[in-house]
Structure formats: C-alpha cells, structure tokens
C-alpha cells in the first residue's frame, strides 16, 4: 500500500491534490491551503466526477471500480473537503496539539486507517450516518437495527448491544436480527461483567459461541464483539453474519476501529435517552405533585445559549443537538403543562370530593330516611312541614355534593345534556365566591326546548364556566368596589354551526401586555393566582374543538368568549 507509517505523516504536510472532471460544472470547489487542483487525473489524490445528482470521488484519478465516496451534489463542498481532508488534518492535529480528546480521535483513526483510505472513508461515512440517525434514535434499543442498516455493516445479519448504565443492577440487552426483528431482554450484572472482561481481554475481538456461554448471546455463529467504556455506561456491541466463516483481518480491523470511532455518538445517544428518561420521571413527578409549582425556564435557556461554541465542529454539533433537544423538551413541556396541571387538579380534587361524597352521602341518606319515616307518623301540620324541610334540605345537600364531585370527574365523555341545567348547577357551585355579585344569564336564539340539548362534555364545560366565573368574581373583588354594583353576565348564543358562550364582568380587566399570553400557563393577574385556570380552560376548549379568546372592551371589564361546534 502506498501510504504506510511515515508516508502518512508526510502526506499530512502537503495539501490534497484534487482533479475535477469536466462533468463537475461551475467552480463550486475552491482551492484552500489544504486543497489544490491538479490538471490531470493522473497526478491527483482524488478525482471528483458528477453523475446526475451525485458526486463520485475516486482515488488516484481513476474512474474504474467503486468510488471511495458518494455524496449528493447538494452536499456542501466543505463537507466533501472535510471528509477527504480529515485523514491528514486529524493527524496533523495529533502531532501539534496533544489534547486528550484529539488524541483519542486521532489515535483511533491511526489504528483504523492502517493505510487503507477506503476503509477509513467507510468509517467516516459510518460515523456520519450514525450521527445523522442519532436524532431519530429515541430508544437505545433501536441502535442494533441502525447499525445493521448502515452501509458498513451491510453484510451482517444480526447485532446485539448490551448497555450497562453504571450503578444499575440490570443490563438491557437488545438483539436485532434482520429476519426476526428486535428482541429485548435483561441480563444480570455478573453475566455482563464476565462477557465484558472476556471481550476486553481478547485482542482480535473474534469469537465463536463455544467461547461464550451460548445462552448469554443472541447472535448466531462466529461473531465480532467490542467493548466500549463510556462516562456513564459500559457497552458491548456484538455483530454477526449468522454464519461460521471467520471474517477477514480487514473486517476485524474495520469493526474494531469503527466502533471505537463512533463511541462518542453512542455516548450522545445514551445521554440523550438518559435525559429523556429523567424528563419523563420529572414529568410524572410533576403530574403527581399535589401543589402548584412555578417553573422559570429562562435561566436555563440562557445558560444553554451562552455556551462556548468556539471549539471543534463536532462539539458544535453536539451542543446544537443538545440545545435543540432542550428547546424541544421545553416546548413540549409548555404544551403539556396545562394538561399536567389539569390532570393534577382534577385527580386530587376528584379524589377528595369522592371521599367526601361517600362519607357524607351515607349519613345524609340516613337523615333523609329518618325524616321520611317521621312524615309517615300522624302528627300535626307544623311538625310535618318542619320534617319536610329537613327532607328537602337533605336532598339539596345531596345534589350539591353530587354536582361538585361531577365537576371534578376526569372523564372524556361526549353526551347529550341540557346546557341550561349545567349552567345553573355550575353557578350554584360558585356561590361562595360570587355571592352579592349580581349574575345574569341570557340565552339567545334558543327557540325550542330541544335547542338546549347539546352534545359535548358537560363536565369540561362546567369546569370552564366555573373557572371563568370564579375569575370574574376575583377580578371584581380585587377592585375593591361595592360588590352589588358590579355584575357578571353570561350569554349563550346559538349560531348556525356553533354555540358561543361569553362571560363578561365589570372588573378591572386584563392589562394589554398580558392579553396575548393570558392563556399560557403561569400567566396571572392575581396576586396569589397560579396562572393555571385560563390555560386549563383553553386546553379543554381545544379538546372540544372550540376556540377561546379575550374580547377587547372599550370600557373596563373583561369579556371571555368561547365557542363550541354543534355536534349532530
């Protein structure tokens, strides 16, 4: 082979000679200190030809045989240079900067390269491929499949990866066979350590099953295995063609170096999935946390942005990825917050109210029966009417308890109900907050009794109206005026394809600057508000396929309007 040992270093000191065939139109390739153009393919290190939408890169000016690199013409020329260059560039970096990280990369390339540029580029491609796919790999159990799908491991039939998260008692083993698919299982640490050490001690990483207990390994036949030690994980990658022929030295080399070379990609994937799991457990913690929490995402965000982006390209990519992930998580978090808090509020209150309902219902029922029993006695009218009062009030208590527990029922139901009844029941429930404030309900365009029957989720609608009325009451109270001079007006208009509800009050209104974000969680005008009420309303209305908005009012006060589609 042409560039062995010292030649490689020599090569690093000169620039790559590139020949561009006539088919490569335009002058998109520019010469740099590292790249010069040769006039003849014979004197060049690489020649680039265009074939439809692809650039094909051949070595030494030849266009016979397989190209060493194929990239789309859309690929930035810098990327192509980088791919062609990385060999010499990394070696030169290795010589100049004795930085640990670089040393790791360069040394793995030195090993991997072993004078074979073709396999070197294969490895680079493999890494680029894995890096590209890593955004799609959400679950670490998908890694074996992606490895088998790569060009480099085209001929292999099965792959197994065992991942030990340091400190965890069980090891996830993911086995993918191109004909069987994915199989997951868990193996104990002792088995894993035994395998890991066996692989670690082996020089050529080539095994057959007689060397390793067959039950521990999913792969069939002769296989290659490589151990990778990461910051928080130990990994074993096992790959097989499902046959018993030993692979060539080149293949063994390729496997060893490519796995070492992509270990940082594995690192990223594993850390991302670890982060994801952490986020999930935070989410479930939040969902079950019985008190409202305040989250301020800004400081974290700024920290992510002020990160030093000046180091190498790969660091940049990983920070970009991390930042992107962060923003994604943040966005989805925002979107889920209302859901989480609604769920939290409903489940906690639902549970409390359910207990209260059953604990109160029994004695109330006893009271009711006792009073009914007394009414059967032949007594004077005065006594009988007093007992009747007891009975009627027992019924009232029961209705209130039932309605309250209905308000916090967590059910996604769609049923026909009378909107007027639900509205009146709901207003009854706001009584403690709304007493002394005059309330008015107007129905427009409801002609027959049938018009009042709508198909939707009565619990949610009741929750929305309950929230809006409570908000109005609190706004009015915050202004400190005489309550009886204020009012809350609830208007329901039946339109052709939707029903419009509006709740308006004579309170101080919502400041203009908050109006755009008032439906977002944690935005509040109240001194002690959680800022969740309206975001929960908006979330529920979305689920009901309706819309909610704040209407600008010239004078003081707030009008919240929401619509619901009429469902036949």
């Amino acid at each position, binding site marked *: 082979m042409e560039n062995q040992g010292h030649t490689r270093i020599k090569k690093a000191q000169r620039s790559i000679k590139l020949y561009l065939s006539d088919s490569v139109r335009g002058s998109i390739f520019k010469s740099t200190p590292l790249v010069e153009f040769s006039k003849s393919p014979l004197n060049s290190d690489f020649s680039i030809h265009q074939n439809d939408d692809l650039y094909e890169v051949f070595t030494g000016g030849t266009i016979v045989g397989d190209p060493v690199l194929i990239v789309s013409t859309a690929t930035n020329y810098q990327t192509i240079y980088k791919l062609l260059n990385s060999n010499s560039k990394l070696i030169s970096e290795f010589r100049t900067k004795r930085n640990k990280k670089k040393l790791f990369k360069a040394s793995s390339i030195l090993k991997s390269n072993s004078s074979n540029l073709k396999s070197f580029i294969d490895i680079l491609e493999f890494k680029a491929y894995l890096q590209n796919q890593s955004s799609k790999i959400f679950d670490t159990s998908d890694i074996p499949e992606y490895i088998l799908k790569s060009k480099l491991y085209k001929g292999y039939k099965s792959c197994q990866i065992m991942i030990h998260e340091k400190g965890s008692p069980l090891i996830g083993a993911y086995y993918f066979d191109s004909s069987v698919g994915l199989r997951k299982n868990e193996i104990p640490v002792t088995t894993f350590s035994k395998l890991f050490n066996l692989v670690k001690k082996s020089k050529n990483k080539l095994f057959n099953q007689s060397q390793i207990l067959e039950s521990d390994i999913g792969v069939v036949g002769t296989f290659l295995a490589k151990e990778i030690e990461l910051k928080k994980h130990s990994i074993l990658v096992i790959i097989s063609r499902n046959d018993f022929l030993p692979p060539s030295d080149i293949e063994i080399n390729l496997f060893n170096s490519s796995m070492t070379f992509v270990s940082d990609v594995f690192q990223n994937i594993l850390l991302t999935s670890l982060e994801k799991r952490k986020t999930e457990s935070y989410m479930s913690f939040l969902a079950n946390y019985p008190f409202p929490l305040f989250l301020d995402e800004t400081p974290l965000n700024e920290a992510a942005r002020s990160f030093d982006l000046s180091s190498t390209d790969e660091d940049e990519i990983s920070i970009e990825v991390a930042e992107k992930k962060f923003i994604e998580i943040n966005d989805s978090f925002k979107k889920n917050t209302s859901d989480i808090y609604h769920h939290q509020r409903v489940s906690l209150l639902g549970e409390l109210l359910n207990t209260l309902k*059953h604990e109160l*219902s*029994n*004695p*109330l*029922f*006893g*009271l*009711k*029966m*006792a009073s*009914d*029993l007394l009414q*059967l006695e032949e007594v004077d009218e005065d006594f009988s009417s007093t007992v009747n009062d007891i009975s009627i009030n027992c019924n009232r208590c*029961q209705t209130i308890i039932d309605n309250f527990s209905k308000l916090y029922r967590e059910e996604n139901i769609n049923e026909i109900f009378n909107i007027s009844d639900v509205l009146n029941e709901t207003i009854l429930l706001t009584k403690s907050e709304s007493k002394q404030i005059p309330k008015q309900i107007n129905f427009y365009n409801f002609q027959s009794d049938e018009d009042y029957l709508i198909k939707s989720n009565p619990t949610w609608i009741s929750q929305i109206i309950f929230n809006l009325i409570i908000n109005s009451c609190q706004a009015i109270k915050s202004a400190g005026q005489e309550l009886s001079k204020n009012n809350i007006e609830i208007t329901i208009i039946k339109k052709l394809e939707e029903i419009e509800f509006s709740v308006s009050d004579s309170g101080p209104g919502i400041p203009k600057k908050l109006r755009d974000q008032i439906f977002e969680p944690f935005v509040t005008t109240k001194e002690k508000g959680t800022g969740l009420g309206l975001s929960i309303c908006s979330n529920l209305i979305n689920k009901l396929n309706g819309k909610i908005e704040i209407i600008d009012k010239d004078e003081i006060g707030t009008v919240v309007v929401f619509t619901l589609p009429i469902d036949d």
Partner: protein
Amino acid sequence: MINMNILVIEDELLIQKSLKKLLEKKGATVEVSSSGKEAIEKILSTNFDRIVCDLMLQDITGFDIIEESKKKYTIEDIGNIFVIMTAYSSPQILEKANSYGCKVLGKPFDNIEEALEVFLRK
C-alpha cells in the same frame, strides 16, 4: 300487611334503624346486623325470606357474605334472597351482582317507596 322475615345488613346506624322501622311499618319482621361476621352467623342459623345487604361494610364486603351463604343456599336461592345496596354502583359491581342474580339498589334511593317494594317483593 306483608309477613316476611328480613335481615338488614348495614353499618350506617341511622340508615339501619330507619330501614328497619320502614320495613316494620309494612308488616315485616326485621333483624339487623352492623358487621359482616355477625351477619354470616345470623344467616347460617336463621332462615330469612330476604337479606338486604350493604356492599361496603367495615369488616368484609357484601359479596363475601354471599360467598359464605353458599354453604346454606343454592345459587338460585341466593338470587332470590339477597338484595344489594351500594353507594358505589360501578359497572363492575353491577356485573358481579348480576352474576349472583341479585338485585342492586344504588344509595341514596331515588324513591324510598319503590325501594321498599323491591325489598318486600316475594
């Protein structure tokens, strides 16, 4: 007047007492029981025409009482004798009660007169 021997198993004493009186007014002979264990003893030692049983008792459930009663009654008898009262009328509970062939009344009763009729039906 209805001449029936009824056992009321209910741990809410006011309900138990009221129900006893209401049924007695209709002419029935009523015995009461506040706990499941006491109820089982009575069921195994006395013959009742009707057993009105609350589902959620302090010690055991009404279904446990029915299971114990299988020592004395056939499945057909159980469907005729037992009437279940419950404040938790979930579909699962209704289904289970149906599997014994028992009638179920949700508490509180919508109409006490109708409930009494169910208890006193022969």
